[in-house]
């Protein structure tokens, strides 16, 4: 790109790439800088699930439903396939308070038009014959989706490039030139200074670190999560299977494992996850994560005893103190936008990215994202703008 971009995006995960696509589609001169490679952070490490069942009422559900509808046509829209398929999610329930919560949630999911049901123990055994039989009251089921996250990112990247966006990998933003309420340009580790009218920070877990370099403090925290993949197996699992007490298990825990498992298109089981609190972002696996995942997996699926596990990986996932996404213009700055800490990222990004592109180009989107605006952190939450 020889001339200055209208919009500079920092971070090449789901959000940055999808925004680049929608900006390019609208004719904005767009440049995306990715410090490492596409999907280096949580986007490339995730399990590829387009989640729906746990969406909260209101804006979250609105976005999830709209996103899911968009996803079903997205391969055609982007002109590349990314292994999209519908996949049910089974949340295994062991305690009665979860049964009650999920009974209500399933009713709500049905109300908004999603396919969902509560399954008793016999239905559950029929749905997943390899699952341990005892210990479950049943499960909540909801039809969700699944895809290959790498291929989704590359589909967005490809489409964005075709429409004129420039995507540069291996270019790290090291600093910002800020004058009063504007960031005029960014410095890169290649010694360049790139000026842009507007700047978007979609750097996932690194977002907080980048914003600090422009004098903005947003309390982006992160957890470290590990996952593992098995050898390819004959078809044995028909849904994503997870535990209804997932949040309770990992909440407040310094280290915790909660199993979620789905069979991939080529037959391997992708198994999540060991969660650990970490003071710094890294991608290393721990010595305990993989053995503990294996042990908990075996407790759920005794038939997997002699199945080989091939490869683990890890990434940091960001979150904000109130656990809602942070999307919008940075208060106190005129030209910096950020979007991070999403819910149900794969499901919502196809719709969120278009809304965000509209916001960036001063258009008026149909869906109002102001509940996710960052000024909610202005008072007493440790944020400084």
């Amino acid at each position, binding site marked *: 790109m020889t001339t200055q971009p209208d919009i500079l995006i920092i971070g090449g995960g789901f959000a940055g790439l999808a925004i680049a696509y929608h900006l390019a589609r609208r004719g904005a001169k767009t440049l995306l800088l990715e410090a490492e*490679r596409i999907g280096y952070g949580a986007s*490339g490490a*995730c*399990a590829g*699930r387009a*989640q729906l069942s746990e969406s909260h009422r209101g804006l979250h559900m609105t976005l999830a439903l709209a996103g899911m509808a968009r996803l079903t046509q997205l391969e055609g829209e982007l002109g590349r396939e990314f292994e999209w398929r519908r996949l049910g999610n089974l949340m295994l329930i062991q305690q009665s308070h979860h049964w009650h919560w999920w009974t209500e949630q399933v009713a709500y999911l049905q109300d908004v038009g999603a396919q969902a049901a509560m399954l008793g123990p016999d239905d559950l055994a029929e749905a997943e014959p390899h699952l341990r039989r005892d210990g479950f009251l049943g499960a909540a089921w909801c039809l969700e989706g699944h895809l290959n996250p*790498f*291929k989704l990112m*590359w589909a967005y990247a*490809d489409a964005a490039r075709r429409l004129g966006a420039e995507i540069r*990998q*291996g270019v790290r933003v090291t600093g910002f030139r800020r004058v009063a309420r504007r960031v005029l340009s960014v410095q890169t580790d290649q010694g360049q200074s790139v000026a842009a009218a507007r700047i978007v920070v979609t750097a996932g877990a690194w977002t907080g670190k980048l914003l600090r370099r422009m004098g903005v403090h947003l309390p982006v*925290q992160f*957890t470290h*999560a590990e996952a593992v993949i*098995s*050898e390819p*197996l*004959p078809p044995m699992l028909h849904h994503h299977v997870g535990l209804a007490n*997932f*949040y309770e298990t*990992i*909440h*407040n*825990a*310094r*280290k*915790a*494992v909660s199993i979620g498992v789905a069979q991939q298109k*080529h037959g391997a089981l992708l198994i999540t*996850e060991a969660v650990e*609190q970490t003071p710094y972002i890294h991608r*290393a*696996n721990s*010595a*305990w994560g*993989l*053995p*503990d*995942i*294996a*042990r*908990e997996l*075996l407790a759920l699926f*005794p*038939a997997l*005893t*002699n*199945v*080989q*596990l*091939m*490869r*683990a*990986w890890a990434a940091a996932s960001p*979150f904000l*103190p109130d656990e809602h996404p942070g999307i919008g213009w940075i208060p106190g700055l005129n030209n910096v936008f950020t979007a991070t800490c999403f819910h*149900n*990222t*794969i499901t919502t990004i196809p719709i969120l990215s278009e809304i965000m592109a509209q916001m960036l180009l001063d258009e008026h989107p149909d869906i109002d994202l102001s509940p996710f605006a960052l000024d909610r952190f202005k008072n007493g939450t440790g944020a400084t703008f």
Partner: protein
Amino acid sequence: MGPAQLFDFNLMPFNSRVSAVDSCDHLITIYIDGHAVQACAGESIAAALLAAGRRVFRHTSKTDAPRGLFCGIGVCHDCLVTVNGRAHVRACVTPVAENMRVVTEKSQQPWPDVDGDEPAASKRDVTAEVAVVGAGPAGLEAALAAAEAGVQVILLDSAPQVGGQYFKRPSRATESIRRNEVFTPLFRRLQQAAALRVLTDTLVWGAFPDEDGWLLTLHGPEAPVRLHARTLILAPGAYDRPIAFPGWTLPGVMTAGGVQTLLKSQGILPGQRFVLAGAGPLQWVLAAHLVEAGAEVLAVLEATPLARLLRLRHLPALWGQAERLQEVWRAWRTLRWARVPMRLGWGVIRAQGGDEVEAVTIAPLDDQWRPQPLRAETLIADTLVIGYGFLSSTQLTRLLGCIHDYEPRQGGWIPRRDAWMQTSLPGVFAVGDGAGVGGALLARLEGRIAGLRAAHDVGRVDANALTASTRNLWGPLRREQRFATLLGELFTPEPGIYTLASDDTLICRCEEVRLRDIRKARAAGAKTLNEIKGLTRAGMGRCQGRICGPLAAQALTENTSPDRNQSVQELGMLSVRPPIFPLTVAELAQASPQNKINSNSNPEMTHLKHTPHSP
């Protein structure tokens, strides 16, 4: 390992068992696909299968293609068979046992049996001042040097005996005597070193930073599950450099290292009509061994042309290498007497056959090792041995995050080291062929230097003693380095060899990814091997990219590019992830340090939210 086992090595009787079981001194019965077969106790399943005339060990799940023994040393994961109901066992590194049921694998895999050995109860963690991974020449010397200085050392190896690929259990008497001149004293010291504990049959599947040192996660029938050590000395060795060409996945195409193992330590001749193609003196020595074992060797193809071998400027590096030159000379003489055609400046371009190799097409190479197909010839052969040198095994140093440099003439990506063999991570040493291919003598010197330095670093040897004890090592070290450099210059493949693969040729044997798909990913903008892996699955299979990673990097790089090495470097290395060898769910579950997890509450961190199943 008990002393008896080691002793067995020493007294290993002359074993002339070549492609027959009659001279084996302890026959057992195993069942191959339901048929009772005699096997020799102690040999590998692969050896038993080959001796029984079985070269096709399995068919792949994606394309139903036949596969057999390829690397022969446990790296490529192509020789998988089902053993006593347990699927995907590496036949080349698993010994036979009485009444073992071996089933060659069909493309449609049955569900992995849940029967099998009960996992042992969780075993204790162990601690050492120095952990040495790999008991080949480098690891043995390192462990001995440190232990003899009083350091508490644990030496680990995945094989049932110490010795590595170099001190293989020999099956020929002369070989045995010559090797034992070196090995016997080493072995005696091994028995006498009170501070040394040897854990064989112990696979290291992960390496992690730990408080005050490092943590290795282990697997093995008698192995502890975790080893804490202040200092690591990594001596993982090397494996045959893969070269892809049409037909290279056919059963009957084997690496020189694999064939050498079969011949030397299993007494198996894995074919009748051999063609050897490669670069370097090792394949000549192997060809001579094959001839002596009764094989028909149709041709030995040496890619490096005579003119290049005979350059005078090589002479200084040969100083002090009389013994090696003599070995090569002996091999050369054997081959001449047997009238084996030796073609310099030639290479293989294709292997043909239905379910296994039936013919091999060869051609002269130009100075860039590009084949000249107009002068190609086809030989009717059943076994093609590929010996284009070695690549360093760097899984552990990469997993730990040591800095690596691309040194094409020394084994590809190798860990950066200081003069004391210490990597960029303080307390992590890398020695031997795993840190740059240089052969056994160099490996032993490096091991000794690192072992002494580690002893110094943990406070067992003072600075003066370190200087004194290493004084005599630097001269020989430089001599061996010079020789290694010469071998690297003469025999490292030139880029033309990587044009043998066509669009249809598999690059990733495990996931059956063709060069076409890898090129497509590259054309779509993937700039690194890790991105190509994400898009194509190349490198996601059981061998974890050990075979396809280096190949993909070479095949994607334009041959004419003047800064070719730069381009290979930019493609980078595939990320290494634990477990560095596939292990079963039950095996990994054993390594879980706690009985009850999820109880480790930290009340200060009440804001911890989910990291969801997907972000």
